């Protein structure tokens, strides 16, 4: 039963990914990405990790992609000059990818992979409480550093967004009065 669901959903996920990459309509592309993320969330559910599935839906499908959609809608949907690619671009890209594969394959030593001792996480990992306990005890430093990075990025975005628009509180109030 679950194998059947897995294969059917895999087809959906790959189909959505193909629409995203090859589709010409950017809004359709964003929606294909939503479908893809939703399917991945179902995969997490099938792996007994409902918390990760919920986060996948809330953070990726619910927040980040809405912002994508927001930007795409504001920028317009005209693919335009994006599709007038240079004549050498495609062969050059294929060549570079092949080179990258040739360079990477020797590094991927399969024998070493089997020797890796990954700590197996039990089913209790799916429980939000135990996940939170791990995040806020053993991994508190990475969590806080990531939070700091995100905060810095947010402050940066706010500063960039406000560039040239610095106004005093009094000016803002005066401005609002004009609107009224």
């Amino acid at each position: 039963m679950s194998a059947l669901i897995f294969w059917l959903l895999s087809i959906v996920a790959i189909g959505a990914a193909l629409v995203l990459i090859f589709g010409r309509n950017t809004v359709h592309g964003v929606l294909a990405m939503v479908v893809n993320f939703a399917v991945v969330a179902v995969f997490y559910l099938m792996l007994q990790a409902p918390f990760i599935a919920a986060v996948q839906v809330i953070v990726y499908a619910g927040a980040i992609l809405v912002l994508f959609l927001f930007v795409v809608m504001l920028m317009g949907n005209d693919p335009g000059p994006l599709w007038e690619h240079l004549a050498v671009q495609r062969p050059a890209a294929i060549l570079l990818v092949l080179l990258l594969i040739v360079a990477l394959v020797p590094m991927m030593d399969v024998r070493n992979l089997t020797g890796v001792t990954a700590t197996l996480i039990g089913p209790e990992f799916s429980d939000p409480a135990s996940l939170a306990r791990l995040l806020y005890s053993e991994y508190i430093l990475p969590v806080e550093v990531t939070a700091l990075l995100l905060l810095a990025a947010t402050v940066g975005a706010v500063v960039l967004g406000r560039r040239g628009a610095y106004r005093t509180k009094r000016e803002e109030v005066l401005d609002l009065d004009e609107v009224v």
Partner: protein
Amino acid sequence: MVAGDWVEIIIKLLALVFVLLTGFAYLTLFERRVLAAIQSRVGPDRVGPKGFLQPAADGLKLLFKEDIIPRDADRLLFMIAPIAVVITALMSVAVVPWGPDMTLFGREVSLALADINIGTLFFLGIGSLAVYGVVLAGWASNNKYALMGGIRASAQMLSYELAMGLAVVGVVMLAASMSLGDIVDAQAGGKWFILLQPLGFIIFIITMLAETKRAPFDLPEAEQELVAGFHTEYSGMKFAMFYMGEYISMIVISAVAATLYLGGWRGPFVDALPILGPIYLIIKIILILFFFVWVRATLPRVRYDRLMSIGWKILLPLSVLNVALTAIGIVAADTNFFGLLG
């Protein structure tokens, strides 16, 4: 799972959908009658006794209306958008428990479709997907008013989702669980979370109005400026589906608010008589729905920049403060810090 479990799930599913769709139909009538009463009018009372067949008449009328798709609309998304609105509205009711476990026909039946251990997250996650229907409707219509409505909706719903999520965190901390069933159990004996989380409850109620795009936060469809906002170009049943989505999400979010803060299905004598559970919950839902209508009749629409500053500069900091205060309260109660408890 055995066949009996599947039958049970399907029956519960059908019952829930039936309750929500009937609730939607009569909520429209309820809203119009209450609004009329508040504004000293009579309201629709011609169709059937006391106007009770008005929803059926409205439905029939919309069914026979011409279904128009604008020439330059994105046909596929134009059709998907209202469906997405209704589906996301229906989905999150799955995690709400409607009453205590009951024995029906010799089976132990739990009165929740799926009381999963991340129920509150599921509710918030589906809520965050609800934006898509509105945004897509606005974009696919290829109409500037609709697009403005869609953009406003996405900004508004994203902004208020944060404060709502953080308000719910307070309840989750008190109940030490994200399952709505556990949250109801933690409120046994009249210890409703509205008493312990008054600030959280107020934040939840305000964000609830914004998330359902109801007055005074109905900017996405502000009639005076945007015609009808994101559903300007819709007609017939597709138009009706937007209303269906809006009213169903009102019912569902009221059910969640009642479950999180007002003790859910709990009330006097419910342990002796389990059938009272759903009745108590429905009474609480109706009271919250009355509040929705009351607010709509009372408050004027908030201006857009004020909407954003309320969300980001007032509600979000307050909800973070609420989480911090709740944490302090829990630690203080656990360690008996103030020496108040025996």
